[in-house]
């Protein structure tokens, strides 16, 4: 049994727990054990862009130190936001010696230092592609929902800046299309796959986020998607929970369930359910039943 160190992040323990739970089920079926880090801390939720704000780098670096202590070279991350923050913090420590020294001096109570090259931060998609292999995932697929059409949504955090992108192209990524096509599910034409969901503006500019959701979900619906698949809890929130409000005001708006990558993959490889459906605003069960993914 392969073992991989894993950092869940806060959301995956709360509103995004379907993401974590389904990933564990999926990995179990694939023969990989996800071993959660001891004492991981919040990633900081956004990577600090002010160059002198080193304090904000401490949280992700401490988590990377925990990963280093496991003795493994990789750290698996599911949440797009955590992935982006950890990956960029790791890159900063690796490439900026002055900041690296400052950070390590500040953490003088830690048993060891973090130099940036000890740990590779790997997103779920890259782990499945490079360590497990998409072919191996595809071989495990037991349910073949022939006519299930999905819209694959990347958002921003998996792709930008380009240095941390999970795909060679951050403008026109295709890694998810590659994975799901191999698993027998048809991705629809979805030009809004990298469009911003509005992110944290959901707190203070709710209307803006609603209009984003209307466009993004509307495009998926127009192109015939039965479901939108995401990798980010914030995208999930913005696209899923906004739909009722949009439907109330926009005539003819068709609601579409939003699911995490691992939820759909877990079902395809034989999991009985995709977690707690009460966490979804748009209930995915009717679609999943219709396509034969749940009983």
């Amino acid at each position, binding site marked *: 049994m392969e073992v991989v160190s894993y950092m869940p992040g806060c959301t995956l323990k709360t509103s995004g727990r379907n993401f974590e739970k389904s990933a564990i089920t999926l990995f179990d079926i694939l023969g990989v054990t996800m071993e959660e880090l001891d004492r991981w801390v919040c990633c900081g939720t956004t990577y600090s862009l002010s160059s002198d704000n080193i304090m904000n780098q401490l949280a992700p670096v401490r988590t990377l130190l925990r990963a280093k202590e496991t003795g493994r070279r990789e750290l698996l991350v599911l949440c797009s936001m955590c992935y982006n923050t950890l990956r960029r913090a790791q890159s900063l420590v690796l490439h900026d010696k002055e900041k690296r020294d400052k950070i390590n001096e500040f953490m003088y109570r830690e048993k060891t230092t973090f130099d940036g090259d000890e740990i590779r931060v790997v997103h779920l998609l890259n782990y499945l592609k490079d360590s497990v292999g998409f072919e191996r995932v595809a071989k495990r697929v037991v349910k073949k929902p022939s006519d299930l059409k999905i819209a694959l949504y990347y958002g921003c955090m998996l792709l930008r800046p380009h240095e941390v992108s999970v795909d060679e192209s951050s403008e026109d990524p295709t890694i998810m299309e590659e994975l799901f096509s191999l698993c027998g599910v048809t991705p629809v034409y979805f*030009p809004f796959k990298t469009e911003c969901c509005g992110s944290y503006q959901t707190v203070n500019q709710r209307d803006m986020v609603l209009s984003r959701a209307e466009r993004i979900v509307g495009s998926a619906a127009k192109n015939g998607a039965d479901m939108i698949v995401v990798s980010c809890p914030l995208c999930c929130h913005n696209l899923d929970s906004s739909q009722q409000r949009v439907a109330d005001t926009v005539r003819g708006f068709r609601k579409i369930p939003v699911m995490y990558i691992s939820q759909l993959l877990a079902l395809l490889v034989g999991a009985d359910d995709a977690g707690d459906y009460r966490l979804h605003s748009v209930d995915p069960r009717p679609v999943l039943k219709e396509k034969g993914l749940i009983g």
Partner: protein
Amino acid sequence: MIKSARLNSVGVFVCHCGINIASTVDIEEVKRQLAGYPGVEFVKDYQYMCSEPGQLLFKEACRSETVGGVVVASCSPRLHETTFRRAAAEAGMNPYRVEIANIREQCSWVHHDEKEKATIKAVDIIKSVIERSKRNESLSSVSIKTVKKVLVVGAGISGMQAALNIANSGIETYLLDREPSIGGRMAQLSETFPTLDCSQCILTPRMVEVGQNKRITLMTYSEVEEVSGYVGNFKVKVRRKAAYVDWDKCTGCGLCSEKCPKKVPSEFDRSLGRRKAIYSQFPQAVPNKTVIDRESCLYFKTGKCRLCVEACPLGAIDFEQEDRIEEIEVGAIVVATGYDLYEKEKIEEYRIGYCEDVIDGLAFERLLSSSGPTQGRVLRPSDGTVPKEVVFIQCVGSRDPDHHLPYCSRICCMYTAKHAMLYKHRVPDGQPYVFYMDIRSGGKNYEEFVQRTIEEERVLYIRGRVARLYRDGKKVVVVGADTISGKKIEIRADMVVLAMAMRPSGGIGELSKKLKIQVDQNGFLSEAHPKLRPVETLTRGVFLAGCAQAPKDITDTVSQAGAAASMVLELLSNEELTHSPTTAWVDEELCAGCGQCVAQCAYGAIELDTRRKKAHVNDILCQGCGACVAACPSAAVNQRNFSISQYYSMIESIV
């Protein structure tokens, strides 16, 4: 005959250069210090040595026969070395015994606020050159016979123009192109800016002229295989590709193409139209001959079909034909290989919007062309309807050093204005939009043309970039920014035309290696000097014309081709080529055949005899730069009148 005892004696002339030198360097002090220097016979000074009285003074002293060599302390040798060497020759002195000591650019101009130090430095510079001069040999220039024939590679408008100019001056010219017909890119264009002349109407008479010129030998459907030799005496192996049609028999009647059952996208029509597997490039092709595209031909694939054989009344089809290698000898080569467009697949942010109705500028030319796939009607490639909203995007791939190409492709502003204008002429109720960064319309009547497009044709120009294209039903949505109003803009277009960046045509890298000429960081061929030698390469005898050197429009291409032709004519106007004898030579006793000098030579002048393990310098190609001398680990390479021992004596005199 100069007595050998005097060969070590030197005369020195110090030029004031008005106040350029004299106001900084103390001329009297220089003269005083040099007067007793070993070997110096006399020191003279004058206001302007390059002036006629100065030259007279110089010649007079050379004639007096008291010295073996002279040193002129003046400006850079780049300016007046030739002047003084010529004067010395007239006075009966070997010109290679004249040396220049540069005390202007390298002394007075850069030290004008430190006069005393400048004077000391001037003396040092002159002393070092005196030492060099004492050890100079009398040399005579190298000469070689030339082959009075020329090869022009690439038969687009630039190659055709150069070939015509050269051939019309009485010199045999080979005109080579890898395509079956001459004509190049210009044959694909519809109308030309800023006059809206029909491109084919002005091109085809030239093509016919080339085809009928008795001094031009066409070598189409051919590629340069190997180049050896040097200026005046190149040997070129040309691969004549198998057309599978006997061109001596073929009359270009086209019966074979009519019968051919296999249709494939036409490269000439940028895949908007189709051609047959046996085809002639376009109706006005010169030579008007057909070729079989082996990849698509049913007979080559399945062994069956042969309908063209039945159709041809002259029995010209020959499936057994093979590539032939033909060897030619020429004195000079003009490279005019033209351009390709940057691939639109590389523009990731537009890719998701790509469909048949998103095309590049050359494809739009084919749509506008009366000989194109739509006979000049602007129709959507996807469904043949007339597009009512067309978006033109400029600078796609150009001027984007972070992601694509750093340079400006130069012609896109103009041809986009032309596209928008011609679209408006063809579809009066349509709306063209142009997204631009800024308009670069430098050229005679160019700005006026753009203004006419904007003001009279009512084309909507939007200053800003397009961020994304995507398909929505039958439309292509163009998402961009209008940086003047600061607003985000979305246009639901029926068609999008991308002004793709220009890049050198494919295969230029290999060709440049065969010709031993340089390419720049963007793959364009490098000229010898960006201002003063724009059509020469560093390899003597190889010249440049057209877009192979840099993006340019037809006007500039034709001008440059004419310039290249005149350089060729100048080169071949003499029975013999002469060349400065201050070249490098190899001491075979010391040469170990390591080849480091070969790698350093930018001019391809050194060859390594691998059997004897000795390097050999070609006197004609060597430009006397000295790179090989510095590179040789065993000091086997020396340069005439610039030997290593001369260097040492120069250094010793000043330290």
